[in-house]
């Protein structure tokens, strides 16, 4: 191998970038269009479709719901997922091998099936309110990702560090917070981001679990495009994207900082 990049490789990388960034550019471009229909490249530049979002109560409402559900479901999934991933890795030798597979099995279940079965058993069966069912559904949806990602970062964690801390007088439960968590911080952040994005973009599960009163943003977008073809869905998407990035930044900052100052 020489240090020089093959021109073909560069061309290939550029193509991949275009492929990845294309949809993003089209969506952002269309959202800035001055027309009343979705078009790319945009004709005329205006922010009117962004203003329009806030005139439409349904978009505002569902966006709030989406963020609430995503935040809460992600937090629940982490609260369950971190100890689960910890136990799976800490006691790997003692535990049967299939146990960790069990935790990622739900990924294989088609999300539509998950949504439908929750509708039947929890919402209709147990009579739980829409919001709670949605929360349960999304927690279940993102939990496997949390366990998987945090497991991956625990796999390289040296548990003798934990024993070192205990031998120095730190009680085991406290050791988990002062020694284990700070060292899997990046895994926790990655899990948070992945779970949050999965939840906020979910259609399949929410499709069954949202009711007339409560809906999520992707479902609202779906309902909107069934009747209209205006650029407002593009601007909603852009707004959603930026808000998500903002949440990620906040998470990265706060989790990063609080752990470091411990």
């Amino acid at each position, binding site marked *: 191998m020489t240090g020089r990049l093959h021109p073909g490789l560069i061309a290939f990388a550029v193509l991949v970038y275009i492929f990845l960034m294309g949809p993003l550019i089209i969506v952002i471009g269309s959202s800035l269009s001055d027309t009343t229909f979705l078009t790319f490249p945009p004709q005329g530049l205006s922010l009117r479709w962004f203003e329009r979002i806030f005139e439409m109560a349904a978009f505002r409402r569902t966006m709030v719901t989406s963020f609430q559900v995503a935040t809460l479901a992600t937090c629940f999934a982490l609260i369950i997922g971190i100890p689960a991933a910890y136990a799976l890795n800490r006691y790997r030798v003692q535990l049967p091998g299939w146990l960790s597979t069990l935790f990622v099995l739900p990924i294989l279940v088609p999300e539509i099936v998950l949504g439908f079965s929750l509708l039947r058993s929890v919402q209709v069966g147990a009579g739980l309110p829409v919001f709670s069912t949605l929360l349960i559904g999304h927690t279940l949806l993102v939990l496997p990702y949390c366990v998987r990602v945090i497991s991956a970062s625990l796999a390289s964690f040296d548990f003798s*560090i934990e024993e070192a801390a205990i*031998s*120095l*007088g*730190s009680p*085991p439960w406290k050791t988990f917070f002062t020694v284990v968590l700070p060292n899997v911080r990046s895994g926790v952040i990655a899990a948070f981001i992945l779970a949050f994005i999965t939840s906020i973009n979910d259609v399949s599960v929410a499709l069954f679990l949202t009711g007339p009163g409560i809906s999520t943003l992707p479902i609202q977008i779906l309902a909107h495009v069934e009747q209209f073809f205006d650029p407002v869905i593009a601007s909603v998407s852009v707004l959603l994207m930026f808000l998500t990035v903002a949440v990620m930044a906040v998470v990265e900052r706060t989790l990063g900082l609080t752990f470091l100052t411990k």
Partner: protein
Amino acid sequence: MAAPLSLEHLTAHYGTTKVLDDLSLDVGAGELVSLLGASGCGKTTTLRLTAGFLAPTAGAIRLGDTDLTRLPAHRRNIGLVFQNYALFPHLSVLDNVAFGLKQRGMGSAERTRKADDMLQRVGLADLAERLPGELSGGQRQRVALARALVIEPQLLMFDEPLSNLDAKLRVDMRVEIRQLQRANGTTSVFVTHDQEEAFSISDRVAIMDAGRIRQFDTPEVLYQRPSNAFVARFVGFENLIPLTSATRQGSIVHAKGDGGISVVLDQEQLGAVPDRFTLATRPDGLRVSPDADAEGIPSTLGLRTYLGRAYHYQAETPAGHLVAAGPLSRPLDIGATARLVPELEQCCILPAEEAP
């Protein structure tokens, strides 16, 4: 604050496998004792039991006046040094060393001062702000040592602390560990599978095999007077010759073995010689004599190797394959017949080996 450690009849299992079998060990206050043995013999398990990370299925652990057997690990006040250092990767060197002091509720200013002092003692004062990832192996081991020492533990335990270091550093560090241990007078248990390392720094060494201690004594005694065949082989007595006493005259014993083996032993040099026993020698304690009629072990010589001070011969004898030494002045060839004569001051008498 030195306290004696006593392990009393410890038995330990992993699942259904027994890994320690009725192991007892007494370490005096301020003493440094090594656990020496091959991989898998239970050294780490012994440390883990003492540290409280594993509960014994039977037996008791006492440190000074305290019964540790049921005490949780974090309340045992034992300093541990691990083979892979086990430093906290997210904390600076200073915070690593101060960690144990923080657990003891010491104020920030005082623990910084104490941790700094300790880093000074291990020669790392100017690296206090570094992260462990930015240190060399030897520096990491010093931090680990400082972290264990600063809490002024009643007991220090090392699990192969030097095996990740290069040969030169290993020798330097073991001297340093011994000096720090001496200066603090902390009772210590040192695990290693390196015989030289164990013998060079320990007051006493426990030689372990298959979850048991085979002999526990000073390095000098272990090296010269092993008490059983396992320890004898371990410390280099390669030649084990089963013999039976034939005639006794005063302190002189004539002993015979298979295939015309006949040796003369002196109980004044070797201690009491029982009726059935095993004579153990190192290669240098078995001299090759070309005089085929002399007393000794009849043999056919095999490969000759040059060792600077002498030749070593691989020899086939009625007692099996032995290794003997011959003078540089008279090299003998492959296939020559010779007698092997034990040098009594380099031999020891072991109880007869049980037939397996």
